[in-house]
């Protein structure tokens, strides 16, 4: 149910219904880490204008969003007892807009994954087929939106961590421009790539949510001063003359014929609506190094960001005879093997003798990739591609953020949205074998309105506005 329709229901009823539904679905989906007590929040609503955009709307946060007095684990053992003493900036904004935070959602450990298989509380199941994965790292949030628990769920996106699960679960996933939404109070992964974003089931809700969440925050040094428009009021699905670029060498990497056909069918419809669709190519050599470039930068930044997780001041502390031993024992047991291995790789690329060859090199290649994308968007309003190259896989068939001998362009092209910081959105465009598939759009910096407008046209064509899953036990 979208926000507009939910607003017609009794506030207390809709909030408790949402919690009840999440609880009922928990055995099947395993998407929630912590349920939040809403009683005090409902009382606080008295001080909020009743026409606030999210007045009494149940909202879910990814579990890397700091919530004062509420367990915030980032789905990692080392933070499994951590209770923040302050709220993230987006909590303040959501509460000021009348939202009621009902749950903290599961994620890949510290956001470092793309499957949600690595969550400390176990893997999250896809609501369309519980034998399949949710995708990650914002898997719990994507699933709780798709299963119609909440019309707005918050995620974060460092390397497609909102957009991939959005595609797998048939919901809209918005990763706005870098700096558009404050990251103050978000447990970081890789600071130059991290974005806050969210999931909805309609474009109108996506537009409404961004106005609530966006805006300058002095507490986040990367927060932008760009004014925040009223995206919802400016929605316009007339796409006549809009210039849409399709990247052929991304599309050629998609093997699934049904997904390709669905994409081609949609682009034809957009053309019939008056959009100008043109085909471009990006430099093949640059596309082939998307993953190692990402892997080196993300792991290096993560290693540094998580050096404060040592069990001394907060987090799970293991005993030891010295401070060093306490830290070593806490970090060894606190992080899963995969995370520790990635920290080793990240640290390796930061060694003085490797910095130029690895970390600086990756940062330089990042600039070349960004220049390549920018050159396309200098000519076009958006870049349109398939989102994920497959329907949500089974756990044993899933591909995580790991290095591979193959280039995996199809799996990793959305990383370009994190390299550039440009706004991106995935949305459902059809179903294959009962599972949702999605398309992906990227626009110029701070041109989220363009994404919403073209998204509205796509929504009208697909008829998938507000679609949610009926979970079968």
């Amino acid at each position, binding site marked *: 149910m979208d926000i507009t329709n939910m607003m017609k229901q009794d506030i207390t009823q809709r909030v408790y219904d949402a919690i009840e539904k999440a609880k009922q679905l928990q055995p099947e989906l395993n998407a929630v880490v912590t349920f939040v007590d809403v009683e005090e929040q409902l009382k606080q609503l008295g001080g909020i204008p009743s026409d606030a955009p999210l007045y009494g709307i149940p909202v879910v946060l990814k579990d890397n969003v700091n919530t004062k007095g509420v367990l915030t684990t980032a789905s990692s053992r080392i933070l499994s007892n951590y209770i923040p003493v302050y709220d993230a900036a987006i909590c303040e904004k959501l509460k000021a807009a009348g939202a009621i935070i009902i749950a903290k959602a599961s994620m890949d450990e510290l956001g470092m994954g793309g499957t949600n298989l690595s969550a400390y509380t176990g893997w999250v199941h896809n609501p369309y087929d519980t034998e399949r994965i949710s995708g990650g790292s914002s898997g719990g949030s994507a699933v709780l939106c798709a299963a119609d628990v909440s019309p707005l769920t918050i995620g974060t996106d460092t390397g497609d961590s909102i957009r991939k699960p959005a595609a797998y679960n048939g919901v809209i996933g918005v990763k706005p421009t870098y700096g558009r939404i404050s990251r103050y109070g978000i447990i970081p992964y890789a600071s*130059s790539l991290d974005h806050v974003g969210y999931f909805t089931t309609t474009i109108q809700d996506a537009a409404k949510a961004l106005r609530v969440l966006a805006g300058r925050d*002095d507490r986040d040094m990367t927060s932008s001063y760009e004014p925040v428009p009223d995206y919802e009021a400016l929605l316009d699905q007339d796409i006549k003359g809009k210039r849409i670029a399709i990247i052929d060498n991304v599309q050629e990497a998609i093997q699934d014929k049904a997904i390709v056909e669905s994409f081609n069918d949609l682009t034809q419809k957009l053309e019939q609506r008056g959009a100008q669709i043109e085909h471009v190519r990006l430099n093949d*050599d640059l596309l082939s190094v998307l993953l190692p470039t990402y892997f080196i930068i993300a792991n290096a930044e993560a290693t540094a960001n998580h050096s404060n997780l040592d069990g001394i001041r907060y987090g799970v502390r293991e005993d030891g005879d*010295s401070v060093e031993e306490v830290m070593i024992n806490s970090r060894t047991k606190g992080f899963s093997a995969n995370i520790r291995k990635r920290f080793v790789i990240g640290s390796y690329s930061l060694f003085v003798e490797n910095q130029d060859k*690895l970390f*600086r090199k990756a940062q330089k290649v990042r600039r070349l990739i*960004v220049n390549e994308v920018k050159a396309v968007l200098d000519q076009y309003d958006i870049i349109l591609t398939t989102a994920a190259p497959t329907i949500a896989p089974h756990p044993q068939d899933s591909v995580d953020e790991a290095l*591979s001998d193959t280039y995996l362009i199809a799996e990793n092209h959305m990383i370009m949205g994190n390299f550039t*910081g440009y706004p991106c959105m995935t949305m459902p465009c059809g179903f294959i074998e009962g599972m949702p598939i999605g398309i992906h759009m990227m626009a110029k910096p701070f041109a989220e309105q363009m994404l919403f407008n073209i998204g509205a046209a796509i929504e009208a064509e697909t008829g998938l506005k507000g679609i949610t899953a009926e979970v079968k036990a």
Partner: protein
Amino acid sequence: MEEMNKAYFQKLARQLMFDVSDEEAEQLREEFKILNKQIALLEKIDTENTEPMIYPFEAETTFLREDQITQTISREDALKNAKAVMAGHVHVPKVVK
């Protein structure tokens, strides 16, 4: 350059203040083989005269603020998540033996 064997990765891990098991060190050895192949691909990209990209945008969003107290948390809050607290401080094993 040091040989990338089990001991090498276990030494790297110790610098990061954690341990990796023998099995994990072996997995890292395999992963580094792939990493080195990928590095070779990166090296092929001509980055002459290209500056590293540290953040997506170069527009200034930081500034020097006035040296005034803006945000504080209480001592009680600061210690809330520590496992061991003594006399208003985080308590750790004795440092000076």
